[in-house]
C-alpha cells in the first residue's frame, strides 16, 4: 500500500527526495535505440505485405495491365495488315491496361493511409512513432517503391511481348523505350502516391478513392460535353491535361502538339504530389489523430 500522500509536489527535484514505496525505477534489459526513418520504413514494409488488400489490388493491377496489354497487341496483330502498322509505336498498346490499372494503384495508395484511420490502427502507429512526418514519409517511400517495381515489371513484359508480336510496326527508339516503360511506371506510381497523400488528408477510404477516380476521369468527361465555342480553350486544356491524355504522352513521339509533351506529365505529377504531400504533413502536424 502507498504511504500517506503529502500535497502533490510539482517539481521533479522535490519529488525524487520523497520516499516512495519502491525507490528503484524499472530498467529494461532491451537496449535503447535511437530510431530513425529506417525503422519506420521496416515497419511500413511489414504492414503493407501483411494485409490482403495489397495482394488484391496489385494482383488485379497485374492482371489488367498484362491481360489487356497482350490482348490489345494480339488483336491488332491478327486484324491489321503489317503495312497499316508502319510508323506505329508498338509500345503504345500497353496504354489501356495501364489506364485501368492505375485505379488499382490509386486504391492501394489510399488504403495505405486511410485504412489506418478506419481501423483505429493510426493511434497505435502514432504512439509507436510520434514523428508524424516520418510516418507519412515511410509510408510514401514503401508504397512508391512497391507500386513502381510492380508497374515497371508489368509494363516491360507488355512492351516486350507487343514489340515481338507486331512485326509491321517500327522499332521503338531508345527514348521511346525509356518513356514507355520507366517513364510511365514512374507516372503511375506517382499517381498512386498522390492517392496515398489524399488518403492521409481525407482520412476516409471510400471518400479518397472516389476523389481519385474523379480526378482521373472527370476532366476528360467534362471536356467531352463542352460544346460551346466560347469554352473551346478550356475544353482543350481540360482534355490535354487530363490524366488519360498525360498517360498517352509517354507513347507519343510528336512534339508539335500543344499541351504536355515529352516528359512533362512526370514533372506535373511530381509537382502536384509534392505540394499535396507538404499540405498533408502540415495537416498531420496540426490535427489530432
Amino acid at each position, binding site marked *: 500500500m502507498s504511504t500517506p500522500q503529502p500535497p502533490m509536489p510539482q517539481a521533479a527535484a522535490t519529488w525524487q527526495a520523497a520516499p516512495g514505496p519502491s525507490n528503484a525505477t524499472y530498467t529494461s534489459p532491451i537496449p535503447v535505440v535511437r530510431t530513425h526513418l529506417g525503422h519506420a520504413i521496416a515497419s511500413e514494409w*511489414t504492414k503493407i505485405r501483411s494485409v490482403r488488400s495489397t495482394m488484391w489490388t496489385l494482383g488485379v493491377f497485374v492482371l489488367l495491365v498484362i491481360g489487356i496489354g497482350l490482348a490489345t497487341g494480339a488483336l491488332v496483330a491478327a486484324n491489321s495488315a503489317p503495312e497499316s502498322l508502319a510508323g506505329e509505336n508498338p509500345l503504345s498498346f500497353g496504354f489501356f491496361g495501364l489506364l485501368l490499372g492505375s485505379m488499382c494503384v490509386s486504391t492501394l495508395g489510399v488504403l495505405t493511409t486511410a485504412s489506418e484511420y478506419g481501423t483505429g490502427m493510426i493511434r497505435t502507429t502514432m504512439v509507436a512513432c510520434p514523428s508524424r512526418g516520418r510516418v507519412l514519409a515511410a509510408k510514401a517511400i514503401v508504397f512508391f517503391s512497391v507500386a513502381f517495381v510492380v508497374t515497371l515489371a508489368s509494363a516491360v513484359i507488355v512492351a516486350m511481348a507487343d514489340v515481338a508480336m507486331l512485326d509491321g510496326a517500327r522499332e521503338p527508339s531508345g527514348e521511346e523505350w525509356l518513356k514507355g516503360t520507366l517513364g510511365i511506371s514512374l507516372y503511375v506510381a506517382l499517381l498512386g502516391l498522390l492517392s496515398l497523400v489524399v488518403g492521409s488528408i481525407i482520412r476516409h477510404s471510400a471518400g479518397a478513392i472516389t476523389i481519385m477516380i474523379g480526378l482521373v476521369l472527370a476532366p476528360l468527361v467534362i471536356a467531352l460535353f463542352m460544346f460551346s465555342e466560347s469554352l473551346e480553350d478550356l475544353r482543350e486544356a481540360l482534355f490535354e491535361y487530363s490524366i488519360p491524355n498525360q498517360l498517352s504522352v509517354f507513347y507519343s513521339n510528336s512534339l508539335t502538339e500543344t499541351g504536355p509533351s515529352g516528359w512533362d506529365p512526370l514533372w506535373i505529377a511530381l509537382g502536384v504530389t509534392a505540394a499535396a504531400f507538404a499540405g498533408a504533413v502540415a495537416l498531420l502536424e496540426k490535427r489530432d489523430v
Partner: protein
Amino acid sequence: MIELEGLTKRYGEKVAVNNLTCTVRPGIVTGFLGPNGAGKSTTMRMMLGLDRPTAGDVRIDGKHYDQLTDPLKYIGALLDAKAMHGGRSAFNHLLCLAQSNGIPKQRVHEVLDTVGLTAVAKKKAKGFSLGMGQRLGIAGALLGDPRILMFDEPVNGLDPEGIHWIRNLMKSLAAQGRTVFVSSHLMSEMALTADHLVVIGQGRLLADTSMADFIAQNSRSYVRIRTPQRERLLDVLHSAGITVVETGNGVLEVDGDKSAQIGELAAQYQIVLHELSPQQASLEEAFMQLTAESVEYHAHSDTPSAPQPQWGDGWKGN
C-alpha cells in the same frame, strides 16, 4: 513518472479537460477514475501525443512525448482494444510495432507468450474475441518492456478470468518499479488494484489521494442493530460508553466495528436482538457522491415519476 500541468483540451465551446495538474508516480498503480465522458480518454490521448492540448503540458520522465526517440520503451499504452488492422495477424501487428522502435523480433514471441496468444499468433486480429483483442493490445503495450504503462479501461468486456489476470498483471508490473496508470469508471475495480487515485469529473480534478486515505475517509464501518427492547439496550450501551444513533424504523447504528462487544453485552443483560450486523459503506457510493455533480449523462432511475405540479395547481384548489 508522468507530470501533467494545467492540461486543458477544448473542442469548440466544450471543455473536455480543464486545467488538470497531477503527477503519476512510479512503483505504484495509479487509478484514473471518472464517470463516462469525464475526459479520461482525452487526457490519455494528450499524454501520448495523439491530441494536442489547448493549454498546459504533459511530461514523460521530463520529456514531451514527441521528444522520445523510442517511445515504446518508455511508455506502453493500451488505448482501445480495436486500435489495430483486423486483417493483419497478431504476430505481424506486433512485428510492425517492434520494428518501428528497433525492438528485436524475439521480443514479439516473448510478449505473445506473456499474454497467452502464442497459439493464435498467425490468426487475423478481426477473428479475435474482445478478450483476445484486449490481450493483443496489452502485448503491444508490453512490447518495449517500458517503464510506464497506461491502460484505458482495460477490464471492459472481459470475463472474470481475464479481469483477474489483468489485475494481477498490473500489480506485478508496479511491483517491478514501473509506473502503472489505469483508467476506469468502476470504483470497485480500482479499490482492488490501485494504490493511488486521481479522480476527475467534467475534466476537472476532484481528488488526488492515496487509496488508503480515500478508503479511510470514505468508507464508514458501523454496526446495525434491531431490537424489541430498545430502551433497555440504549441504557446498557450508554453505560458501556457506546454512542448510538437512531436512524428510524427502529434501526440503531453504532460507529466502528463493535458487533462482538454489543453482542456480548446483549447476552449479559438478556436483551433480545433481531439484527446485529457489521456494515461497510461502499466506496462506490463515496465515488458517486464525489462525482455526482459532474456526471455528464444521467439516467433517471425513478421511472414514471410523480406528476409534476402543473402551473396553476396552486390556486385552482382555492
